[in-house]
């Protein structure tokens, strides 16, 4: 083998990886929504920031209140964001004098933050031990602490900053919203609503199938601003309508296409990035990552071929080397019984 072959070989190994990369562009499309995907529609324009959903979430899930540093008694919850103790939180966008609700300049708006239950979730894709799973039927992203090794790749990968690891504990776990249907809570299985939906007094958080929630969101975007609309509360057919004036909506449904779609959908009076929701392309990053991985490792063909190739070269070269130096003790590779230490 001459130097040219050597360099070719070096490039070849890299080339296999590069070729894998180039052809993987559409190797795996986005996942489709689960057949009976449940969903939440959060309408920021209806939210009054009462945080009843935050309190109810804590009660249902047995989470302790989070107090500010200057509070000596934990009388009420003041969680500023998601944490190991908080699965659901209301945050505010403010600008300038913050005079008018749902206005970008000199206005303010509320946003509810909890797990988005992505249609094609990154956390499920990256978890090495299947501690994050997506229910094949209702699409809820569940977490199993008994499987989790605590690598926190899900925390690193989630674009919504949702999975929260408990660093304060000596043996922490991940906390995230599981639609109030995780083992031991199982509200949906018992015909109840997620805690936050049940607690919401204005219908800002609505529960239903993803199809129903998308249809309702589209209906709202088609309304004339300033007209009256009977806003449903809890679910579409609970019979709990609240009449309200239709605001000027930002003309998009967050979660319809973003990052492959989510099962928590947002409507808002301000642009979504103002609310801290990341702007993501339609193709999910999970599909792009898995497509690449599966192209390189398809059928383990490339690794096996590489193994066969280098094993053949190594064996041939070792044999040649042994023959060349068969009668040359100074350069012999094989050990001799008279080998000695010259230490000292």
């Amino acid at each position, binding site marked *: *083998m001459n130097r040219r*072959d*050597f360099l070719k*070989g*070096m490039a070849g190994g*890299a080339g296999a*990886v590069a070729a894998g*990369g180039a052809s993987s562009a559409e190797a795996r499309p986005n996942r489709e929504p689960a057949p009976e995907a449940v969903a939440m529609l959060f309408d920021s324009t209806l939210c009054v920031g009462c945080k009843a959903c935050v309190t109810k979430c804590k009660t249902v899930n047995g989470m302790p209140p989070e107090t500010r540093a200057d509070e000596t008694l934990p009388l009420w919850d003041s969680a500023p964001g998601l944490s190991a103790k908080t699965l659901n939180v209301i945050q505010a966008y403010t600008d300038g004098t913050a005079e008018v609700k749902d206005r970008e300049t000199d206005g303010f708006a509320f946003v509810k933050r909890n797990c988005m239950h992505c249609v094609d979730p990154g956390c499920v*894709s*990256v*978890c*090495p*031990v*299947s*501690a994050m799973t997506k229910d094949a039927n209702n699409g809820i992203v569940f977490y199993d602490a008994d*499987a*989790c*090794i*605590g*690598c*926190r*790749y899900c*925390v*690193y990968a989630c*674009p919504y*900053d949702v999975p*929260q*690891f*408990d*660093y*304060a504990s000596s*043996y*922490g*776990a991940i906390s995230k919203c599981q639609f109030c249907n995780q083992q031991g809570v199982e509200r949906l299985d018992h015909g109840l609503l997620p805690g936050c939906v049940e607690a919401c007094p204005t219908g800002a958080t609505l529960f239903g199938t993803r199809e129903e929630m998308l249809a309702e969101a589209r209906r709202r975007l088609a309304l004339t601003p300033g007209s009256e609309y009977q806003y449903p509360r809890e679910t579409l057919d609970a019979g709990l309508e609240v009449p309200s004036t239709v605001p000027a909506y930002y003309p998009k449904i967050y979660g319809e296409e973003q990052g492959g779609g989510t099962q928590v959908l947002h409507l808002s009076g301000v642009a979504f990035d103002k609310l801290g929701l*990341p702007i*993501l*392309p339609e193709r999910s*990053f*999970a599909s*792009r*990552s898995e497509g690449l*991985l599966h192209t*390189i*490792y398809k059928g383990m063909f490339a*690794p096996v071929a*590489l*193994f066969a190739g*280098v*094993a053949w*070269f*190594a*064996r041939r*070269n070792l044999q040649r080397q042994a023959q060349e130096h068969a009668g040359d003790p100074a350069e012999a590779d094989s*050990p001799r*019984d008279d*080998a000695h*230490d*010259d*230490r*000292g």
Partner: protein
Amino acid sequence: MHRAHPIGGRLVTPFTTLLALLSLIALWVLAQRFVHGLGAVTHLNNGYPWGIWVVFDVVVVTGLACGGYVVAFSVYVANRFQYHPLVRPAMLASLLGYGLGGLGAVVDMGRYLNVYNLVLPGQMNFTSVMLEVALCVAIYILVLTVEASPAFLERFRLHRHQRKLERVMFVFIALGLVLPTMHQSSLGTLLVVLGNQIAPLWQSYELMPLLALLSAAIMGFSILLFEGFFSQLGFRRASEAPLLAAFARPVAWLLVVWLVVRFAELTLRGKLGYAFVPSGLAAAFWLETLLFALPLWVLLSPQRRRRAHLLLVAAVAMILAGAVYRVNAFLIAYATPEGYHYFPSATELSLTIGLVALKILVFIIVVKRFPIISAPARS
């Protein structure tokens, strides 16, 4: 060419004592971590879930442990047996480096008692790049143990075992080339799923595995050069500079390929503009790029390449280049929501420093007592 032989000499020196002290501090931090948890000894948070224990101890250190990978390719596949004297020190250093990486990964695991789930077929998630990296690294540590074992078999005069092993060594050599190709490229694939959370100057999607593999090869070559000079000075060996200079030649081409791929990707995807927007990220990019480009000044010139001190400077620059690229991609380029900050704590740093010290300490002890190094003593 000389046979490998133990260097000999005292084990207790001021330098090894210092290394032992640093290792002991790491041991104390390790105890704190397991008793009180990650939060007690690190500055990790949910905005920065991966700190230096992952990004340095695993991602950078395993890259720097690619000396065995690179030398095995050069000697056994490219048939350059003149570099055979580099095999034993390289395999030992790689084994220690990967051992350190594996230990770092377990220490960083929040729920380490569940680690067995990585090998339960019912739990394994084959869409996870992390699973591929974890299993591949674990198997490679075993392969490196076999690849590094001839020196120990020779020392304990287990010649029959050594001869038996040598007959099948080509299998381990081949595994030792395939496994790092897999997991070192996958270290790049790890970041693809993060999408636009990684700044555009570093998020190259389908090219991530190629860049990670190239950086591994560059780091592997440069650490071999560095270790060569380290042994020469530290153990008072005869100069191996001509051998190292010849060995260093292909790395120049790796650097050229690196710069071409990196800039082609940035240009074709229209992202090069970010490098000229005054920002910390642009500064990090140019620092990294300079570290990759400057060694070419030494390596492309036959005269300069033969000057030992320049070659050493080039090696250090390339070690830093690989390390800075990986830290940039995993930590600096990582966009996290407002309100999160990360800088490693003193205890976090001392574990990393202590583990590296332990690696060097074990390397020195082994080299002094086992036949690893071939260069004769300086006359």
